[in-house]
């Protein structure tokens, strides 16, 4: 006598909405990069991602004018993603190296660093303009 408790569960699932959020499109496009390019042009629309919670740790935001060039962040960055530029006494952050721990946010004495909600930042060029924050 076999007992298969999963069967009723599967049958119920037929009438439920799928749990997966269809991102970035309802059906997989032939080329995801091509699709995203079309989204950029405005000819296609993206299925929105699930909203990020408050205090989400996304791409870093740097307030250049508040910064006092104290170098604390360069010292505590676990990934060595922050470079100090002596000429301008300001920092440069390489987002490709950043591990999104937000430790620099906690350490900054003047609150010049913040984490944004942006997380769709994958690119083919690691030195792309929007992947270097300064």
């Amino acid at each position, binding site marked *: 006598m*076999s*007992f*298969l*408790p*999963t069967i009723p*569960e*599967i049958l119920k699932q037929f009438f439920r909405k799928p*749990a997966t959020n269809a991102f970035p499109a309802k059906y997989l496009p032939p080329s995801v990069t091509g699709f995203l390019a079309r989204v950029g042009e405005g000819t296609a629309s993206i299925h929105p991602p699930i909203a990020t*919670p408050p*205090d*989400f*740790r996304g791409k870093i935001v740097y307030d250049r004018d508040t910064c006092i060039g104290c170098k*604390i962040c360069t*010292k*505590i*960055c*676990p990934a060595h993603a922050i470079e100090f530029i002596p000429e301008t006494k300001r920092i440069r952050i390489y987002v490709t190296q950043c*591990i*999104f*721990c*937000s*430790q620099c946010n*906690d*350490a900054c004495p003047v609150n010049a660093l913040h*984490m944004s909600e942006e997380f769709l930042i994958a690119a083919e060029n690691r030195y792309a303009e929007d992947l270097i924050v300064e």
Partner: protein
Amino acid sequence: MSEEAKKGYSVPIGPIHPALKEPILFTFQMNGEKVEKVDFAPGKAHRGIEWMGMRRNPVQIVHLTDRICGICGVSHTLAFSRAVEQVAEIEVPERAHYVRTIIAEYERIQSHLLWAGVAAHELGFDTLFYLAWRVREESLDVIEYLTGNRVNYGIVQVGGVRRDITADQFPRIEASLSYYEDLFGKMLTLFLEDTTIKMRSRNTGVMNQQEALELCAIGPTARASGLNMDVRQDSPYAAYGDVDVRAVMPEQYLGEARGDVYDRIVVRLLEVKQSIDIVRQCMDQMPAGEVTAEPKIPKLLALCKKAEGEAVGRVEAPRGECLHYVRMDGHEQPLAWKVKASTYSNQMSWLKILQGEQLADIPIIVASIDPCMSCTDRVTVLRDGRRDVLTKEELHRLSVEKTRRLQS
């Protein structure tokens, strides 16, 4: 029959294989469908994390330890910061202990549900795999809500935690706890009463109590074999001393411990329930106050820099005991940092539990100890472009040399 045919044949599985979730090489001596002898070679996922740690200060290493394992990140962070806190004599505030416990328990929930899904997948039962992982999402969402990230939480820092759990976050936690409580009975039925799972996992990969003791098994693997051991119960850390936590044994559900794959499923599922209870107790008892002993990071760095001495941090990770050894000598970087992940102790059980089993049972038996190779792989020797396997004598010699070096 020739002599060769009688001897059987050998089947290599790995280093990369669909049945294995992480790189490791198994060599099976087979006789027909039966496994006669097992050998395995770990070390394929070595990333040099300890080496990186020796060139960083404790505040940085904490975030590095988060990345030792993708599933049990907070266990490593907790073990490391506990070790550093002992060396630097930093006293962690009471509330921080409770926040740490809540996050650690949520991690256990998501880790065990992940494992349950993987186990179902290894049995060829993909429907259950999807169901388990859908349910797991809830715990990840709560973790993201509390810490700001789904996988690398980055919430623990030496001296406390970086984010407090505020009163307005309690309803969200409460909602997820009752979600899991409602679901728990169903999960037990789906996993433990299913004929398919029973057939495949009952009396497969058996390890009795004596063997588990001899092979130094830990965590759920040891508990499934009837060893009553759990770091949270035996030497409480964080807030575990204040809450009611007792090792989950298969006897509590079935009346006996056979030490097979089925018992390991039982232990892990019951631990999900235990974790829900622990989070509940923590939420009720949470005292008010600070969540970190030293909120100013430069001051914390100075404290760690002054510290001298050595300490061990022990934490019950979802897979078993996780141990970090740290020695500091008044420099920014630690002089020595050693990580012992839980799989390091558990992997020897493979030699026993795989023996005499069928080829088709290998994936589930390998997965049954919940192996985590990336956590475990700590040593790889490369000399003149050659990869060496160290013998016991050589390792002993190296160990003696290192002790002398540290003493001098």
